[in-house]
């Protein structure tokens, strides 16, 4: 997957530049909310519960201040990515113990026609590897700046 294919999936209404939550469950709730507002999910509770159970498998806090909570669930009909930025950071049980500041929530249906789920997940993980770009993404004040940052500044 190319970065512009990932960028094409991102939506301004699914971008939260100033996350308020201070705990892991609150973060999941805050990230799912724009999907509910946008009418992208049938059941908010079901999505949150599936995401929480995914965390049981192992934290999606991948370290370096990034968390990628994700799941497949029948409660959505299409793949969606919600991007959230927390200035203060939230403990997400990451291996390196660093608080997470940059969140990518990825939800997809079990039957995803183009089979985008794993490629998208892989591309997101790859896109945050570069520390300069990561910092630029965390510092992005708006959607436009974020898109610029994720595409290499």
């Amino acid at each position, binding site marked *: 997957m190319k970065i512009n294919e990932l960028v094409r999936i991102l939506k301004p209404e699914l971008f939260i530049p100033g996350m308020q939550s201070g705990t892991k469950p609150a973060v999941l709730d805050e990230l799912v909310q724009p999907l509910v507002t946008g009418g992208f999910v049938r059941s908010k509770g079901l999505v949150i519960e599936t995401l929480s159970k995914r965390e049981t*498998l192992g934290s999606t806090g991948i370290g370096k201040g990034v968390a990628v909570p994700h*799941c*497949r669930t029948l409660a959505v*009909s299409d793949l969606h990515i919600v991007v959230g930025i927390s200035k203060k950071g939230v403990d997400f049980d990451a291996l390196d113990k660093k608080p997470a500041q940059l969140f990518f929530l990825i939800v997809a249906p079990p039957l995803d026609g183009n089979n985008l789920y794993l490629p998208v997940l892989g591309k997101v993980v790859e896109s945050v590897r570069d520390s300069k770009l990561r910092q630029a993404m965390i510092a992005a004040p708006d959607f436009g700046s974020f898109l610029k940052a994720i595409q290499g500044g």
Partner: protein
Amino acid sequence: MTRNLIELMVLYQDLDLMLKETAEAEATMGFEMEGREKLRKAMDDIAKNISPRFLRTYQRLHTRFKRPIVPVQNDVCLGCFAKLPTSYGEKGRKDQMIYTCEQCGRILYWVE
């Protein structure tokens, strides 16, 4: 748990697929995957809240289909693409009952 029957069953299936499908690929991306047993236990707890009759229906279907519960869109079963009666959807969206596709027998979940 206040969740209704169909949502519990959907949750059960989503977690079942989660354990089977993505673990290996995600591990190679650098995700921690240590909690398989914990997740399996969580699934057992969810199963306890599903009445045995419906759990049996799910398990019987599971021997034939990878996904016993399928979404319905525009009155079409996305398991076999049969057109369902519109009245089905009106009931299925709000009822606590479990509805199955007349053609393939899969359990239906109205996503919209």
